[in-house]
Structures are given as C-alpha cells and as structure tokens.
C-alpha cells in the first residue's frame, strides 16, 4: 500500500518536473572501470565547497559586515554563541581543506595528463576556480576584521599599487577610498559573499557539465598516446564495453573520502579551533606584525625574499605569467602520452612546485627576515660581565636595536648574521667599519653612536668567540 503511494508520488513528480529521471541518468553515467582512489580529489573539493557554503551562511546570521561591528560580532561568534567557535573552526578548516584539495586535484589531473584533448576547457575552468578559491581565502581572512585584516588590506593595496599605469587606481579600489575605513570591509564582504560565490557556482556548473560531456578520463596507459583523431571513438568504445555507472560503483569512494575529510575538519575545528582574533582593527596601533593564513604563507615569503628592485616583476607579472602558463597548458600540449612515466618533466614540475611552496612556506612560518621586537636584554651569563665596557656594550647591543636582527646565543632576531661567535671572523677594525657604515640590510650607525659607545659595543663583540676546547 505505502509502496504504491510512494510510486505514485514519484511518478507524479517525475512527470511534472522531469528531474528524478534526469538526475538518475546523470548520476548513473558510465565512467571508466579503473577510476579508483586517485579520482576522489575533485569531488572532495566540491564537498569542501558545500561545507563552506553551509557554514558561511550560518556565520552570516551573526556577522555584521561593518568596520565598527565586524570585530565585535567575531568575538560574539567565537566566545559566546553556542557552537560559534566550532562553526568558525569548520569554516576555517573547510577553507584549508578546499585549498588543499584543489591543489591535489590539480596535481593528479596534471600528472595523469587528463587535461589533454578533449578536456582542455575542463582544465582551463579549473584554473579559474583555483584563482577564485584563493581570492575567497584571502578575502575571508579579511572579514575577521581584526588588526591583521587591516594591514593585510594595506599590503594588498601596496602590491596592487606597483601595477604599471593603473596601480594607484587599483590600490584605491582595494582600500575603497584613500585610507582603510568604513568603506573597506563592506567591499570585501560583497566580494566574499556574493561576487566570488557567484563566479564559483557558475564555473563549478560549467566544470561539471564539461566532465559529463567528455566523460571522466580513463587512467593513463604508457605507450597509449592521445590522438585527437581517434581518441573520441576509443573512449566511447571503452565506456560502452567496460564502463560502470558512476553511482554507486565509483561514487562510494567519493562519499567515503568526503566523510573522512569532514571528520578531520570537525576534529581540527574542535581541538585546534579557528585562528585567534588579533587586536581591534585600529590602523593607528603601530604595534602590529601582519601575517597571512597558512595557505598564503608561502606568498608572504615570496614578498620578503624577492630581490630589491624586482618587486614590480614579482608582484604583478609573476602571478600573471603563472596564470597564463596554467591556462595555456592544455592548448599547447593537447596530444601525446598521458602516462606520467612517459612524461618525466610533468613529475619534475609537480615535485619542484611542491618543494618550492613547502620551502617558502617553512621560510614564511619562521620569517627570519622579520626583526624580533621582543628580544629581552642579554642575560649576565651570556654577556659574561656585570660592569665595564663589555657590560655597557651588551646593553647598547640591545638598546640600539642590534639584537632585533642579530642572534647572540639563541637570543635576538634572525634578520642579520648570527653574531654569537663574531670575534672568530672579524677583527676590531672590521667591526668598527661594519657598524659605522652598515650594509644593504643594516643601517649605518656612524651618526648614531658616540666614540665611547662604539668602543664599548666593539669590546662586547670582541668577547663573542666560539667556545673552543
């Protein structure tokens, strides 16, 4: 009886909307039989996107996108609202997962040569989606509306300002005016919540449509190159002979992987939590050390390490060239071998990219180029004197800011060379010359030290010898 009603309702809905049959047909489209765990990253990205949409909409219930309120609503969400802290954590680690899965998906598609004929536009739309995802990550960090957000906007505007001709205009656009203020945050809110999601939905739709249109690529076989003349017929034959329905033969792996991902995200959100809020978004507080979230930490390192005078090339042309190369890739190399074992350069490119980003990331986390403003004065045991020129010199080493950039026995900054054993390599005269004249990354102290202070400082540094037996 119930079954009969169920069927009648189902048939009615199908007749009036046509959706159940269409969805069923789409879900059961045939996919290559060997598409296994390597194929889960794309749907995992989609899964992460869904988490972002759901948690983002929920956060919007309590968030006020105004410069004066955003920060306090963030505090309310984090500290008072039931589940608020958990929800923020989900949104943060969901974003992290999305960036990570986009990266893995891209690497997998690249290594398997799946971007080749006829899937050039699958790849190109994917590259755009990567860009949108990074913009979402960047703007999302700003919506926290804390001090870090203020300075991140300023740094972004400064970077945009280096663009030839339209730089000032772009910087003005990013700030929403001449300075950070009331107009700044509402812009980023509109971009994060309306404009970018609009683009993402449109291009995810297109991306999925293309996946259905060209089918999921079969796992590559060495010695079986793609020939645009014959590929279509070969793929059709493979699918008709051996294809399996996507749902459920292949989709179960996507579901399992997605759920594992959700569990990991939830665990991180519960036990590690979303990033702490910084100070209030007051641009007049000068005690700030702006840092991006982890997924842009490597770029933070690029900004620090680019050689002097090349900023314009790194800031503007760098991302532009990377974008053009990525989009052009499938159109230039749309045929030939797909197997990574026959494309050693593909493996090399992925490895180099991973090593490069990882190295820059580690450098970004350590950020040895940032002066250490909190270095306490050197302890008596390190100095080895409690009065006299050596003692005075050690005091000056702290007070004159030397310790902000130089290490002495693991105390101080890492911007400049470690001076723990500097007397091993520099004579007294060499030290005076160096301190008085400075260098590319060191100020000249000639006008900043009296002769007596210079003597004391050098006397202290002359005692910095390695502990030889």
């Amino acid at each position: 009886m119930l079954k009969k009603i169920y069927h009648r309702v189902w048939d009615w809905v199908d007749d009036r909307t046509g959706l159940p049959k269409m969805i069923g047909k789409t879900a059961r489209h045939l996919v290559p039989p060997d598409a296994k765990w390597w194929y889960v990253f794309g749907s995992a990205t989609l899964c992460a996107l869904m988490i972002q949409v759901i948690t983002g909409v929920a956060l919007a219930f309590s968030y006020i996108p105004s410069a004066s309120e955003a920060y306090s609503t963030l505090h309310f969400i984090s500290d008072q609202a039931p589940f608020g802290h958990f929800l923020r954590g989900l949104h943060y680690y969901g974003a992290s997962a999305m960036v990570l899965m986009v990266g893995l998906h891209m690497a997998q598609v690249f290594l398997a040569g799946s971007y080749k004929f006829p899937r050039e536009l699958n790849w190109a739309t994917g590259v755009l989606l990567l860009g949108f995802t990074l913009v979402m990550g960047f703007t999302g960090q700003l919506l926290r509306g804390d001090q870090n957000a203020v300075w991140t906007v300023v740094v972004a505007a400064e970077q945009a300002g280096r663009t030839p001709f339209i730089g000032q205009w772009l910087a003005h656009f990013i700030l929403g005016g001449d300075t950070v203020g009331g107009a700044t945050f509402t812009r980023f809110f509109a971009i994060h919540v309306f404009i970018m999601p609009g683009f993402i939905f449109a291009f995810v739709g297109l991306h999925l449509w293309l996946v259905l249109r060209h089918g999921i690529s079969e796992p590559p076989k060495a010695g079986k190159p793609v020939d645009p003349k014959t590929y279509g017929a070969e793929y059709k034959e493979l699918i008709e002979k051996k294809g399996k329905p996507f749902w459920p033969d292949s989709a179960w792996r996507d579901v399992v992987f997605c759920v594992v991902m959700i569990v990991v995200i939830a665990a991180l959100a519960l036990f590690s939590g979303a990033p702490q809020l910084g100070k209030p978004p007051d641009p007049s507080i000068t005690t700030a050390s702006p840092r991006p979230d982890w997924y842009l930490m490597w770029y933070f390192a690029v900004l620090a390490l680019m050689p002097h005078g090349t900023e314009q090339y790194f800031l503007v042309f760098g991302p532009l060239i990377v974008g053009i190369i990525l989009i052009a890739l499938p159109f230039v190399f749309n045929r030939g071998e797909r197997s990574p074992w026959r494309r050693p350069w593909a493996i090399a490119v992925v490895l180099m990219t991973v090593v490069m980003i990882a190295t820059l990331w580690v450098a970004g986390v350590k950020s040895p180029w940032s002066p250490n403003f909190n270095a306490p004065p050197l302890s008596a045991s390190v100095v080895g004197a409690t009065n006299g020129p050596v003692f005075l010199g050690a005091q000056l080493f702290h007070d004159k800011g030397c310790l902000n950039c130089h290490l002495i026995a693991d105390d101080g900054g890492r911007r400049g060379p470690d001076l723990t054993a500097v007397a091993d390599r520099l004579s007294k005269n060499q030290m005076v010359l160096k301190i008085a004249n400075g260098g590319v990354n060191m100020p000249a102290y000639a006008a900043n030290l009296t002769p007596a202070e210079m003597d004391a400082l050098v006397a202290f540094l002359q005692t910095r010898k390695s502990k030889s037996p």
Partner: protein
Amino acid sequence: MKETNAENNSTGCPASTAELSRRKFLARLSLAVGSVGAVIVTVPVVGFLLAPFFERRQEVWRSVGKVESFKIGETTAVQYEDASPLPWAGVTARSAAWLRRVNADTFIAFSINCTHLGCPVRWLAEANLFMCPCHGGVYYQDGTVAAGPPPLPLPRYPVRVKDGDVQIQTAPIPITK
C-alpha cells in the same frame, strides 16, 4: 511539447520570405530593447561602485597636541581621525603618524606606512631608527632608508603649528608606485 515552427524548420519546410524578415526584425528588436533595459540597470551599479574614484576628498587639518607636549629631538606616535570618516567606520577611521620635533618650531610628520609594502613601522627611540616588522626595512630618524627592502624614504605629511596646537593634514595612505 515541441513548437510547431521548430518542427517545420527541422523538417526543412521553408518559411516565407516575409516571415523570415519579420523574425529577423523581432530578434533584433528584442536584443535592442533588452540592451536598453540592461543599460538602465548597469549604469547606476557601475556608477555606485566606481564613485569612490571620482570624489576628491577634502583633506583637513587635525590637531594632535599642544606644541609644548612634544620634546625637541623626540619622535612620538600621534593619532587623529581620517578626513571624512563614515558613521560606521568605528576605530578604522583612525590614522597615525610619527611626529618628530626637530627644534623649537619645526615638526616633521612621517607616515607610519613602510614604503615596501605598507606595514606599520615602529620607532626605536634608543636606536634612533624606524624599523618595519614585516620584512625588516629600517629608516633613519629623518625618514631616509637605512637598510632593507624599502625603495623610498618614509613619506611625510604636511604639519603646521596653529594657536599653540600641532596640526597634521590628513592624507591618503601612501602607495609606492
């Protein structure tokens, strides 16, 4: 379900010339009228979004303290409000500058924004240096570059003394070209 005309076309049945030109006319009419509609909606949207570029902001003088509250030879942080803070700007409407009193009646107001990437530089009073927390840019007390990546000296803001008050003129955040 299917349109009869579509069936006609697919079976190759030719439409009369008059009908064709009528169709062409209707298609063009729809596109033209549609464009007018699109323009009516687009103009205010684009204008609204681009408005900040066309309004020239009136810069104003802001008092940051009495002359005698600044010691000769010292550099201190001063805070003041933006030129035209929006009602909902809250603390984001605040600006800051490093104010140096050179002698009895000369003041210099430095931007707090490093010329490298705009991070807020800090004044190290003992060392007589400005230092940037982001990438280690360093400036001397007169704002010239002492070390690190900054391409230009610290920008200066107009500053004056009026009725015993030190006043700084508001200015856009300096963007290095």
